[in-house]
């Protein structure tokens, strides 16, 4: 049940992390989508803007180029006859090079008879135009239709796409180049004749003002002026965006037909505003649009498409950036949340475990308490009876006991008293383990002096020389340290009993302190010593290296010392030689393990 509970708990927390991830991802997608929409909208606006500006610019220029033809018609209505010089003067005055850049030729086609309209004047008279004089465009079907339409309407009419000779640009190998363009015709009527109806206009026709407009040059002029170079423009005659009708292409790549091919339509006409699907097969952001342009009653189509450079004007990488950084942040958030949740979960588990351990420890401690109370009270009571009644026997029945019997009773008493001490020592040992450790500053030196004084008083008959280093202070539990020091000095006192000149010293071993990076204290005596073979047995409870008859003791003292030292995080070990005294070292904090082979110090058995 607990496992299930913890799994549910885990899921509950993990769900939080996943929820954070989900929310963050959704927000990221929304943000990315919004940014993308924004970028695209802004790009579209810029594109539409460019389209409109260009459309207007082209329209204006064509209108201006065509209006100049009305000026030429004015020339004819102002004078009875226009000579070649007058025509040349007029055209020169227009300053075609500067003000009407791209117009290849302004000419006059005079009506020589029915169906005959040869070009009479062609200005400027350069190599390309010279050959036009005498050429009759009316013989060409396309031109004838346009000319007839102009004659009937009295307005400028444009031919469809045609080709014309133009001066080759500088640096070209040939003199003349054939260029695509359109030809505009404006009819001139004889003065004084009525021209209200089509029939009257046909009768009054005197000739045509002819204007050769090579579209590449005419439009190049415009588009150089103020144009977004990252948008390609193609101009088509009529509504069909086919190479046959192409009048002008800024970059020479016919994108309109490409776009039509990729969008699956088969060269059909586009709607007034046709938006190609954004996003081309190569994944590039792109916009395409085709708009109609009315040029003197003739429909042209302008096709615009963004070039790769167009993107640079927009933060088209922003949506991707938002998406990626959003993803990163989402994952990070998820990770952080998950870690937090995990950490909390672990802490909770650890806390629960700790609580349980604490409870168990408390129970154990209470049981120990009860146990040691029983030991203290109930185990000692029978001992008192044994000792007491033995004594009574010795006192009251002394006459009936021989010496041997008295000796036995003495042994009974000694044994019971010894057991009493054992019980006391064991209780002391368990108390050392159970009592809470309260560290404070302890003056080890004066503590050692006190213990030494106590020992001297206990055996005034003995002359023991104590040598105690002054000024040793430690941080530890004063009660426990007193117990430890009492045991160590008491041991030394005990085992020097047979020495004539007993000497016991206490101090800090600086060399070992340096090696172990922690203060190492020692209690040294010149007493019975011990065999290093058994050094690790010294600290076990009830372990004794000497017979009870040799030295009294319960064998619990050093076990108690070891527990006290360990509770302080320190270690205790000993070195000695039989008959040559012993030294007990101890630390009260954890430090480096001192290498016994280098220090010739036998370490205590490793703590479990």
């Amino acid at each position, binding site marked *: 049940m607990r496992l299930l509970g913890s799994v549910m708990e885990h899921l509950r927390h993990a769900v939080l992390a996943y929820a954070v991830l989900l929310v963050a991802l959704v927000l990221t997608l929304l943000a990315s989508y919004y940014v993308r929409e924004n970028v695209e909208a802004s790009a579209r606006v810029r594109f539409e803007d460019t389209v409109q500006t260009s459309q207007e610019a082209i329209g204006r220029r064509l209108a201006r180029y065509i209006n100049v033809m009305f000026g030429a018609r004015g020339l004819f209505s102002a004078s009875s006859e226009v000579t070649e010089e007058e025509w040349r003067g007029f055209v020169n005055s227009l300053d075609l090079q500067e003000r009407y850049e791209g117009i290849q030729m302004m000419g006059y086609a005079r009506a020589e008879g029915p169906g005959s309209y040869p070009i009479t004047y062609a200005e400027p008279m350069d190599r390309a135009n010279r050959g036009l004089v005498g050429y009759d465009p009316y013989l060409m079907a396309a031109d004838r239709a346009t000319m007839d339409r102009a004659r009937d309407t009295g307005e400028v009419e444009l031919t469809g796409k045609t080709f014309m000779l133009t001066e080759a640009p500088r640096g070209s190998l040939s003199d003349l180049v054939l260029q695509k363009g359109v030809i505009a015709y404006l009819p001139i009527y004889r003065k004084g004749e009525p021209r209200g109806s089509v029939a009257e206009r046909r009768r009054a026709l005197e000739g045509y003002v002819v204007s050769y407009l090579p579209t590449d040059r005419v439009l190049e002029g415009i588009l150089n002026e103020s144009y977004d170079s990252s948008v390609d423009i193609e101009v088509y005659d009529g509504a069909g965006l086919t190479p046959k009708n192409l009048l002008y292409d800024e970059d020479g790549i016919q994108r309109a037909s490409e776009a039509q091919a990729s969008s699956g339509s088969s060269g059909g006409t586009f709607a007034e505003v046709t938006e190609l699907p954004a996003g081309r097969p190569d994944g590039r952001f792109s916009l395409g649009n085709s708009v109609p342009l009315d040029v003197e009653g003739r429909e042209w189509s302008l096709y615009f498409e963004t070039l790769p450079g167009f993107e640079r004007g927009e933060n088209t990488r922003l949506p991707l950036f938002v998406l990626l950084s959003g993803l990163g942040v989402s994952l990070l958030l998820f990770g952080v949340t998950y870690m937090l949740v995990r950490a909390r979960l672990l802490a909770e588990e650890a806390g629960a475990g700790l609580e349980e351990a604490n409870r168990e420890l408390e129970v154990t401690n209470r049981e120990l308490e009860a146990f040691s109370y029983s030991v*203290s*009270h109930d185990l*000692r009571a029978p001992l*008192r*009876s044994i000792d*007491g009644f*033995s004594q*009574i026997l010795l006192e009251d029945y002394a006459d009936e006991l021989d010496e041997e019997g008295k000796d036995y009773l003495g042994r009974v*008493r000694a044994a019971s*008293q010894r057991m009493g001490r054992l019980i006391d020592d064991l209780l002391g040992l368990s108390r050392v383990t159970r009592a809470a450790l309260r560290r404070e500053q302890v003056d080890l030196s004066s503590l050692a002096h006190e213990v030494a004084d106590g020992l001297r008083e206990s055996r005034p008959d003995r002359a023991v020389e104590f040598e105690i280093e002054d000024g040793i202070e430690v941080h530890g539990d004063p009660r426990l340290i007193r117990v430890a020091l009492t045991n160590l000095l008491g041991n030394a006192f005990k085992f020097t009993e047979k020495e004539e000149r007993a000497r016991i010293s206490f101090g800090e071993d600086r060399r070992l302190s340096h090696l172990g990076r922690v203060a190492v204290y020692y209690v040294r005596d010149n007493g019975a010593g011990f065999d290093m073979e058994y050094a690790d047995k010294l600290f076990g409870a009830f372990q004794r290296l000497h017979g009870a008859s040799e030295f009294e003791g319960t064998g619990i003292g050093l076990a108690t010392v070891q527990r006290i030292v360990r509770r302080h995080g320190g270690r205790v070990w000993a070195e000695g030689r039989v008959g040559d005294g012993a030294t007990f070292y101890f630390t009260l904090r954890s430090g480096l393990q001192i290498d016994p082979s280098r220090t010739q110090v036998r370490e205590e058995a490793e703590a479990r």
Partner: protein
Amino acid sequence: MSKIILLVEDNPDDEFLTRRALKKNNIGNEVVVAHDGTEALDYLFGTGAYEGRDLSVMPQVILLDLKLPKIDGLEVLKRLRGDERTSLLPVVILTSSKEQQDLVDGYGYGANSYIRKPVDFAQFVEAVRQLGLYWLVLNETPGQGG
């Protein structure tokens, strides 16, 4: 008038040894023994088996073991101190326990002295001698004078 010693002790061996230690020290006072806490309280307040006892006679000193059947020594001490008739009676805790908590509790509930029974009978005799000397000879108590 003989000064009565009330010995509250459940262990017959200990009772015997205590009596003997008293005798050894020539303390001939009357010893009343209560074998558990209830009996001790009955004696002191004239209830139960001691119904109708002359309550003007109170022990000079009470030797109180802590670990007792029925009502333990500390509880007896608490009730003693809670009753004005017995609140001033000298109480010496005489027990096997050396537990710190028992010492603290004992004095906390108003014991006048705390003596741990040693295993060594010779030492026990010496302890009884000292407490007899102190509580039966040297010590003056209110209301019992003269």
